[in-house]
């Protein structure tokens, strides 16, 4: 699953640490998410999308594979 976290974070001028603090996770989690190496829980996906005022499917891009 790909995502637009890095792009949206840059657009909102957030550092990884700031984003992590806003959604109450560790910075390491954001690093793994941005690299697309970790699939978040529905709650975290919702929190991140909500922070960027986007729908989940606009932030997290689901592949059919």
């Amino acid at each position, binding site marked *: 699953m790909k995502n637009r976290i890095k792009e949206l974070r840059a657009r909102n001028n957030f550092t990884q*640490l700031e984003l992590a*603090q806003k959604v109450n*996770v*560790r*910075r390491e989690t954001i690093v*793994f998410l941005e690299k697309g*190496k*970790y699939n978040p*829980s529905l709650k975290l996906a919702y929190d991140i999308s909500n922070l960027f005022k986007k729908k989940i499917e606009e932030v997290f891009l689901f592949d059919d594979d």
Partner: protein
Amino acid sequence: MKTKRALLVITGLALFFSVGVLIYLQMTEIPTKIMLVYLLIGVLAIISVLYAFKKMKEEKEGQPKEDEFTNHIKYKSGYYAYVASMYMWLFLFLFRSYFPDIETIVGGGVLLSGLIGFISKTMAKREIYEE
């Protein structure tokens, strides 16, 4: 929580210092197997001190101690460490004749369990990278 971390740092340093003193006192003749145990204690102490410092820095930044990602890693590495430890104890039992006494086997086993835990955590993280 901060006190717990500080305690961890102090314990690690004390452990490392004790090993140094022990080695110095017995410098005349240290058996290789004992030297390996000391080395293992030293490695674990260094790892624990570095880990404690990292945690303290993260705590200062206001990061939570754990989240869903760390829990994921913890469960996975816990399983790996459990399986690996079972094999380790089996091998220690099979090759018990190579050890001087039962204390060395038990002590070495406990220390190796710590090392296995650390390796399992690294492996679990790497596996998530490859998922």
